[in-house]
């Protein structure tokens, strides 16, 4: 079917939109089961109250807040990475950016939803809008997340316009839908100029917003006076962790779609090697921050801080803490130092490990502090119930479903960018490369000379 079009070269990219196989329905059915679990769990929670969770006094936050931080962290996959790659004009970005951006948008919905799930009175959530107060970091979150969400949607949408136009022209179905979203794209010079300029602005704008989002998420904890929360490096620490988990999520998504949609031709081992290297750097950076954070706490040695510290190191939370160290540092380092062979398998292992590890990291930040209060209370051990597991499973499934549905409407790899890469990219890179080098173009030299 795709072969009869001139654009048959990128048939693999159109295939998921044009054809829907039994596999898709199977996956959707499975996802629905998980979502149903989550839905039933939420209904029960709504009827009975948060009592159906494992939360109690003093551990008033548990899985939901962990999930919130985790999902918002994952969202950094996308927009931030794609923006940096775009700005740095890394040519290997072309098949990567779209997938990254989609993750961001989808996961932000899920992440923000966690807070609603966590509320004791979801029926009163409008109170945040009617009576909100900016002294609360929760409102900072609301603001920065909505900014990030808006920006991410725009940033996902803008580079998609030419692709939508292609779909509009190519597909027979959903004509109105694509026509509307294509915004009358014809690929005229003016349109290209406008779009490129807008994308460039967005790429710059989205980076500080993304950084702010996770800093603000960390502020939820660090603005309190609680031991091991009240820390100045929490902002950057969370951002680093977010990018770390974001890259891992991106890699996992890429590998899944590569396999499922047969995109081996677009996503080559080299992409994964680059991303793997990025992951390695982030792992080291994450380790540095973790080390700095815990060393500072340990060296200071205030009793309250140490209570939490030891609860993590040797106390009831040791499996989580050391599990986190293993999955976030040891395994990634082992997998990623040499990527010469079995690149994809290694990168996948490392990424999955990091996803688990970063979730554990969020958990190990949220729960031990709460279960070791300053005053002599009974220390509570928190263990989630089926409701919380259900919400976790449901959230992941919902995210996967959103993503999957997206791929059924829009190409998961930017078609025009690939084409652009083929058509103008090569030449452009060569020219650009020359300007980097000492024996650059005459004009450049002249300019340099003038300045001297």
């Amino acid at each position: 079917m795709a072969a009869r079009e001139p654009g048959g070269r990128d048939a693999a990219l159109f295939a998921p939109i044009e054809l829907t196989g039994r596999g898709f329905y199977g996956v959707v059915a499975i996802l629905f089961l998980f979502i149903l679990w989550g839905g039933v769990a939420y209904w029960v929670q709504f009827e009975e109250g948060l009592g159906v969770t494992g939360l109690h006094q003093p551990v008033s936050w548990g899985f939901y807040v962990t999930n919130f931080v985790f999902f918002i962290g994952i969202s950094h996959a996308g927009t931030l990475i794609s923006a940096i790659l775009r700005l740095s004009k890394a040519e290997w970005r072309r098949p990567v950016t779209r997938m990254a951006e989609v993750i961001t948008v989808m996961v932000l919905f899920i992440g923000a939803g966690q807070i609603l799930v966590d509320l004791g009175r979801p029926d009163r959530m409008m109170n945040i809008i009617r009576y909100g107060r900016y002294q609360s970091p929760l409102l900072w979150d609301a603001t920065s997340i909505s900014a990030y969400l808006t920006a991410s949607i725009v940033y996902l949408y803008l580079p998609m316009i030419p692709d939508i136009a292609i779909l509009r022209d190519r597909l027979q179905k959903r004509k109105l839908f694509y026509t509307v979203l294509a915004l009358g794209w014809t690929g005229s010079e003016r349109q290209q100029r406008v779009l490129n300029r807008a994308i460039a602005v967005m790429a710059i704008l989205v980076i500080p917003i993304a950084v702010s989002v996770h800093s603000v998420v960390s502020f939820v904890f660090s603005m309190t006076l609680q031991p091991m929360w009240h820390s100045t490096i929490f902002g950057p620490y969370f951002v680093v962790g977010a990018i770390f988990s974001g890259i891992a999520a991106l890699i996992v998504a890429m590998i899944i779609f590569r396999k499922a949609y047969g995109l081996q031709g677009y996503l080559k081992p080299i992409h994964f090697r680059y991303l793997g290297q990025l992951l390695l750097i982030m792992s080291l950076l994450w380790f540095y921050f973790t080390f700095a954070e815990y060393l500072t706490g340990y060296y200071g040695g205030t009793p309250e801080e140490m209570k939490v510290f030891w609860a993590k190191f040797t106390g009831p939370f040791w499996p989580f803490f050391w599990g986190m160290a293993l999955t976030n540092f040891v395994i990634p380092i082992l997998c990623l130092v040499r990527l010469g062979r079995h690149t994809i398998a290694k990168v996948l292992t490392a990424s999955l490990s990091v996803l688990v590890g970063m979730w554990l990291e969020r958990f190990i930040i949220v729960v031990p502090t709460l279960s070791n209060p300053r005053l002599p209370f009974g220390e509570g051990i928190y263990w989630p119930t089926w409701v919380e597991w259900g919400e976790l499973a449901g959230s992941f499934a919902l995210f996967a479903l959103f993503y999957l549905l997206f791929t059924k409407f829009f190409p998961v790899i930017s078609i025009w960018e690939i084409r652009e890469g083929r058509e103008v990219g090569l030449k452009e890179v060569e020219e650009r490369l020359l300007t980097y080098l000492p024996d650059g173009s005459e004009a450049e030299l002249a300019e340099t000379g003038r300045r001297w």
Partner: protein
Amino acid sequence: MSREHSVPDRMARAIQWGLAGAAVLFIGGIVTWISHLIRTAWRLKDVPSASIGISLVAVPVFLTLLGVILYVFWGLLGDRSE
């Protein structure tokens, strides 16, 4: 692709401009909301400085976003009508 103004085409344009309007409404709503929060904080003497401080960052960001959106809408849609 036909250049005639067919019925779905007109509808598409209406929806497109509607989308732009929605964006304006949405970001306008957020900006109004922020100002509402400042006013509430002021009335309750509840740390209006925090609200103002955050609004100083948040409002321009949202306005910039709106600017980009409108710029794209105007730029792309405007091109076709020429």
